[in-house]
């Protein structure tokens, strides 16, 4: 799953020179007449972990879903590897080496873990299935134990691992994760974030992470964006945002860590 030419951990400054993988320009998304995204600009460069933080209902998940074409952006453009994907159907976007672990995990509950992973690999016709299966089993040993159990019988943390593992099965270049920490115990959150880090550092996978858990997300990410009611209000490196008093007041107040 390694990307050719990716060898060292890209620091924030080094990443700046990397080519832009995903670029969002002036995207406006509506639900009926209600505007959810009011013209969003954002870039994700190769090898980066970029996080998007914001309050409930700010439009984080909408942006994630808009990138995947469901709902479609009414205005603006989304390009991936230089190709315009704004009007592409969701399943074709998924075939462009972008994978998504959607909000609420959305695993297939009545199918076994194994079958869930098969579904993840169906884009490339199970060509490297056994190899990739072994790989995700090393990443998530818990899944290996539960390979033949039904998805719906897993605990919340395991389901999240399964959702990420399923996304990895298509060998994506860009991984979109929507709130992987949602509803999970702190220790499991730590585990999942360290796996994201490992994916990025070892395989050079580009990760776009939508999170409510701002502290962990900003600590992990190279760069971050802050979204407020459909607008990107702030951006910077993870460190900068963590240190920013406004961010601290709005998203890091109270007992974090």
């Amino acid at each position, binding site marked *: 799953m390694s990307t050719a030419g990716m060898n060292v951990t890209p620091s924030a400054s080094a990443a700046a020179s990397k080519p832009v993988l995903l670029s969002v320009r002036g995207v406006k998304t509506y639900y009926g007449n209600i505007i959810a995204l009011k013209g969003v600009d954002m870039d994700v460069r190769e090898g980066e972990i970029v996080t998007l933080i914001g309050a409930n209902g700010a439009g984080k998940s909408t942006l994630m879903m808009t990138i*995947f074409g*469901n709902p479609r952006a009414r205005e603006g453009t989304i390009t991936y590897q230089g190709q315009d994907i704004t009007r592409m*159907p*969701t*399943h*074709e976007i*998924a*075939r462009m080496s972008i*994978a*998504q672990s*959607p909000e609420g995990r*959305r*695993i*297939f*509950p*009545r*199918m*076994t873990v*194994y*079958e869930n992973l*098969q*579904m*993840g690999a*169906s*884009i490339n*016709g*199970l060509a490297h299935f056994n190899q990739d299966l072994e790989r995700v089993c090393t990443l998530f040993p*818990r899944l290996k*134990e*539960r*390979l*033949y*159990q*039904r998805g*719906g*019988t*897993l*605990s*919340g*943390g*395991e389901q999240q691992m399964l959702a990420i593992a*399923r996304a990895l099965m*298509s060998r994506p270049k860009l991984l979109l994760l929507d709130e992987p920490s949602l509803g999970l*115990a702190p*220790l*499991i959150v730590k585990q999942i974030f360290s796996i994201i880090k490992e994916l990025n550092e070892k395989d050079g996978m580009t990760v776009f992470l939508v999170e409510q858990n701002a502290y962990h997300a900003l600590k992990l990410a190279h760069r971050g964006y802050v979204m407020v009611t459909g607008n990107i209000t702030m951006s910077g490196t993870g460190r900068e945002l963590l240190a920013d008093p406004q961010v601290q007041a709005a998203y890091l107040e109270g007992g974090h860590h």
Partner: protein
Amino acid sequence: MNAPPITTASAESPALPNRFDLTAAIKDGLKTALIMLGLSIPILAYKTDQSGGDLWLSPRWGLVAILCALVFGLRILLHAFMATKAAREATPSPHQATEFVHAEPNAFQKTSRFAIPFFLGVALAFPVIIYFIQGGLNESRYWVDLGILILTYVMLGWGLNIVVGLAGLLDLGYVAFYAVGAYSYALLSTTFGLSFWICLPLAGILAGFWGMILGFPVLRLRGDYLAIVTLAFGEIIRLVLINWTDLTNGGAGISSIPRATFFGLPFTSGEGGFAQTFGLEFNGMHRIIFLYYLILALALLTNFVTMRLRKLPVGRAWEALREDEIACRSLGINTTNVKLTAFAIGAMFGGFAGSFFAVRQGFVSPESFNFLESAIILAIVVLGGMGSQIGVAIAAIVLVGGPEILRNLTFLQAVFGSGFDPNEYRLLLFGAGMVAMMVWRPRGLISERSPTVILKERKAISGSLVKEGHG
């Protein structure tokens, strides 16, 4: 992290509080029967009869005895029901466990392992068995006909199972494809004189084509709305068949449809017929038995194809679609194609069954394809357990064979009087059966979904290995 592992109550766990206790149940049953007896004395035991000016009492102790026995039996049944229900609720299913539990195959899984070869054997040997029981070819006609009827519904159930059970698309108009298949054969054979063996695949293709035509407008629909549109589609096909008299001969139907041949040998008594070629004495039953094996083969083909498809990407995609459409799309699956193939392949088997229907009856009319047929086929799938092949087969036997058995319960006339026709209670029993099913097995007879990939290295995963590391 130190949460105690959830132990699942298994068979050896000390006496579940609600295990069915027979002696207690009998005691309670006797008590209830006694109360019934007490209540009966003033109400039931004597009947006032009037003849002229005299009023006299006629005792009815026989009726009282029957009712007391009935109450006794029902009370025990109630106990049994409550006990199983309580035991079931007290025992979490292994599929709900968050920890790994050593999941023993349950009773249904155990029986199904033997049930499949058993059913298959019975189905294959059925005409022979009946021949020996009834003692002759002509005498066994009724039973072989019944077998054909049941197998037709088994096949229809399996066909619809692809759409409803696997892909999760609720289709209330499945009979439309059955009709398309039947009329395809009827029209092709009477107009162009094509033989059954050429028409069969053509009918399947045509029905599959109509499946796609239905599929396109309903791609965006799910659940209730899909059900309504498919229901309407079924009615449209039927109404077109009634009203397009130039083509379909309207409500009068199409008659004298050519019969099936044994790979070119007609079932006739004369020269070159089946009986003569094989040196047998001519008998009309040869054709019926041939039809029986034909529908058996078609049904098994449906089953075989479904089982194979489930293991292929398209079948997996159907099941994933049933589970979560949005997740499917974000995994790069073209849900449009997946839905259309489900509709088309389901419809194709409906078409096969339809052309079999036409060749068997020799006559088709729109009357045979009303909504009730769709409802029965859907009931077979739902009661059998969506997605379960063996469950669908059992449900077809019960729902189609049940009413026929009812017709033969003539001994009940001895109990309820000669005017009693058990067949009149068919729908009542049907309803009671449905209610009982929904209480006991709300997800169908066999609600277990069998994984397409089975545990190969069970030892490596079960037991001690998974004791450490809890979520």
